[in-house]
């Protein structure tokens, strides 16, 4: 007997109990003119049916009400979504049964935006957010942002709906929005997926998903909720038996102790150890731990900025004398590197694409602590090129840090300590002029039009430096000026990049971060490229509608600028004369989009285009006043390419 028939019998039983005034309905089923084979509902044309045959309502708790109970038990604060019929049951339960709290429904204008918001939210809140996407079509929209999060090892709870039983699907659309195995769309880029067939299984799968996605290596998970399971009432006898498993946070996988002791031994023996940190900072404790390790060893740190790893002005932070530090190293301790091979090798963009080893100490040893290799899948190649190391420690680097510190302190003699202290002083001296050099560099383009990224970044810094700020956007397209010139010392002030460089990440991820910052007294400022912004302009409406305070600055170079350079490279390589068509297909101009007007149309305060650097400060001041009042704002800045 199918689940559907059981459901019908249950509804019929309720309908036959007039003493309690019950009339249950399967709304989708009664809309059909022909009953499903085996259905308890007779095959009578809809218009000919007496109303009494159409149980119009359910009473009591529904399946999706219970699903909301499960989400509340997991303390999911927000669920971002564009509405869709495959999860209408859950949608209605969230806003009415759940009173639109825990989770609160955040309306987005694209599923990619919903998923990218989850990405940014996690990196600030350090807890997952959910998005809910329409069966098949919504999931495909969301898949780019899911891939970014997967490549960035960031968890998110992706929920979707599906009308699993073919004979109860309405014609046409519900078939288009159903799949035999819709998780296959994103299975290569999620850590776990499930389509539970009962409410108890749903509860257990949700808790399992939460545990799996928040245990390193982290990644998105997908739970698909069956349409009937959502919409049907829960039989009273079943309701009594339902139980939501208690969520118990799992410890993170730490490195094997024997291997950690071996790493400590190698570090103590090294003359010039260098620490390389990339996706290391998992919690807000991470920067302080890394500083303590660097101070203990007297080792410079090269921070690749994909997490908040280390205060940028700490004198042991040598990120902007990277090659000098690495060339001098006889041991590199790589903490959660993304591309360990690329740390010491290079494939220049030349015709022959040679494999060039970087200049390194011939006796260089590499100790690697990380989890990035623990979730390699075969299709997408985000796992990077195979890299050798003298000691590989499989484990979360931050979770391994206490044991490494303890092992170092145990193994270091007084002489070792003295040697490391002496080295520490010298290494600190080597970075003394980095800030001064950066200030000199940024001045070169101070007064240019189009406005230089350096001027833009430093005008912004001048406005926010005396308050609690957070910048969630990527910095590589503004020459990393914030990391060179700002004072980034709090563990939440930056959050790294997109993971897979899928364009359209910055605006929605920044909004997710701003959502996490909401109510924390932090000013969220994001500099987003125009190409990136145009992938998800609807994010502005979500910001305005939900009153999420954030300042967006559009770094408007009126181009897909990276690709401008790429096409120039191709044209030069092929000796094209005059480059007459070289900008075809890469400029976002003629007409130039007016981002301030677009933002105003979505309900934001906005100014621009700002073309004169002298006008920047005033525009930023006015926009930040709006943000400090709790609303979003945008400034369009006509910018140099970089």
């Amino acid at each position: 007997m199918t689940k559907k028939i059981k459901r019908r019998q249950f509804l019929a039983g309720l309908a036959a109990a007039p003493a309690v005034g019950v009339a249950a309905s399967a709304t989708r089923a009664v809309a059909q003119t022909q009953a499903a084979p085996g259905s308890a509902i007779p095959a009578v044309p809809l218009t000919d049916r007496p109303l009494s045959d159409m149980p119009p309502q359910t009473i009591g708790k529904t399946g999706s009400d219970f699903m909301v109970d499960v989400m509340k038990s997991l303390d999911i604060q927000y669920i971002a979504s564009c509405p869709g019929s495959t999860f209408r049951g859950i949608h209605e339960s969230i806003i009415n049964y759940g009173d639109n709290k825990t989770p609160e429904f955040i309306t987005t204008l694209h599923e990619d935006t919903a998923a990218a918001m989850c990405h940014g939210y996690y990196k600030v809140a350090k807890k997952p957010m959910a998005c809910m996407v329409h069966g098949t079509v919504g999931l495909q929209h969301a898949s780019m942002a899911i891939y970014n999060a997967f490549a960035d090892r960031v968890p998110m709870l992706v929920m979707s709906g599906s009308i699993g039983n073919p004979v109860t699907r309405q014609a046409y659309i519900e078939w288009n929005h159903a799949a035999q195995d819709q998780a296959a769309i994103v299975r290569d880029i999620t850590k776990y997926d499930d389509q539970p067939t009962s409410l108890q299984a749903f509860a257990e799968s949700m808790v399992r998903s939460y545990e799996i996605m928040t245990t390193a290596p982290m990644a998105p998970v997908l739970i698909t909720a069956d349409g009937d399971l959502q919409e049907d009432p829960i039989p009273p006898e079943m309701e009594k038996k339902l139980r939501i498993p208690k969520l118990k946070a799992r410890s993170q996988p730490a490195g094997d102790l024997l291997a950690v002791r071996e790493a400590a031994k190698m570090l103590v023996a090294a003359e010039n150890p260098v620490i390389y940190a990339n996706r290391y900072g998992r919690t807000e404790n991470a920067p302080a731990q890394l500083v303590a390790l660097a101070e203990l060893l007297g080792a410079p740190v090269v921070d690749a900025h994909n997490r908040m790893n280390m205060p940028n002005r700490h004198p042991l932070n040598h990120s902007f004398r990277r090659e000098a530090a690495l060339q001098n190293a006889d041991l590199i301790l790589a903490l959660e590197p993304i591309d360990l091979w690329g740390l010491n090798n290079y494939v220049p963009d030349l015709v022959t694409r040679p494999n060039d080893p970087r200049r390194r100490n011939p006796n260089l040893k590499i100790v690697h602590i990380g989890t990035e290799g623990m979730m390699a899948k075969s299709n997408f190649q985000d796992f990077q090129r195979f890299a050798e190391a003298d000691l590989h420690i499989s484990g979360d680097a931050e979770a391994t840090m206490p044991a490494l510190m303890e092992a170092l302190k145990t193994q270091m003699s007084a002489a070792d300590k003295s040697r490391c202290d002496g080295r520490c002083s010298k290494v600190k001296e080597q970075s003394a002029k980095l800030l001064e050099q950066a200030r000199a560099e940024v001045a070169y383009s101070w007064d240019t039009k189009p406005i230089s990224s350096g001027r833009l970044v430093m005008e912004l810094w001048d406005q926010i430096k005396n308050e609690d700020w957070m910048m969630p956007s990527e910095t590589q397209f503004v020459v990393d000026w914030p990391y060179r010139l700002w004072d980034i010392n709090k563990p939440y002030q930056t959050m790294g990049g997109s993971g897979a460089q899928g364009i359209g990440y910055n605006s929605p991820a920044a909004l997710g971060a701003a959502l996490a910052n909401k109510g924390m007294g932090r000013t969220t400022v994001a500099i987003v490229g125009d190409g990136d912004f145009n992938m998800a302009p609807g994010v502005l409406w979500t910001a305005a509608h939900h009153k999420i305070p954030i300042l967006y600055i559009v770094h408007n170079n009126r181009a897909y600028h990276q690709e401008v350079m790429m096409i120039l490279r191709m044209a030069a390589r092929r000796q094209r004369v005059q480059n007459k068509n070289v900008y075809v297909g890469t400029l976002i101009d003629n007409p130039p989009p007016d981002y301030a007007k677009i933002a105003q149309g979505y309900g934001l305060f906005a100014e621009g285009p700002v073309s004169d650097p002298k006008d920047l400060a005033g525009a930023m001041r006015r926009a930040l006043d709006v943000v400090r009042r709790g609303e979003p704002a945008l400034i369009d800045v006509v910018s140099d390419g970089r």
Partner: protein
Amino acid sequence: MAHNPLPRRGEGLGEGPGWSSPIGLEMDVTKRSVFLGAVLAVLSFGVAQAQDTPKGDPKAGLANFQKYGCYSCHGIVGQGTMRDGPRINAAGIGYAAVLTQLRTPRYEMPAYTAVQIPDSGVADIYAYLTTLPKPPDPKSLKQLQ
């Protein structure tokens, strides 16, 4: 053709076009001084050949700087963009070195032949870069303090 004295990629200038490098690979700014040192070494060569530096038109040079896409990697006033191209503004680079780098580049810069950019066009670009106003003293900018 004169020997190109500029360092090869990875010997000082760090990363090239962003997508060819993982995010987070920053150039080594202290090594830039090595680069500039190399350039300055060329400068003396350039000064010695000053009489060979053709006269260019700065205005036409700006147009060429945009037309040929120099700005895209080096910035509109040649200020440098760290990942994509070094600073060539006030870098003391002699014309001969500029021409050599353009024709037979070291590092990842695309090569431009005389068919693509004639020597006169390079001279205009050189004139543009060498007549740019001096940048303000960073100490005079309150935003940098």
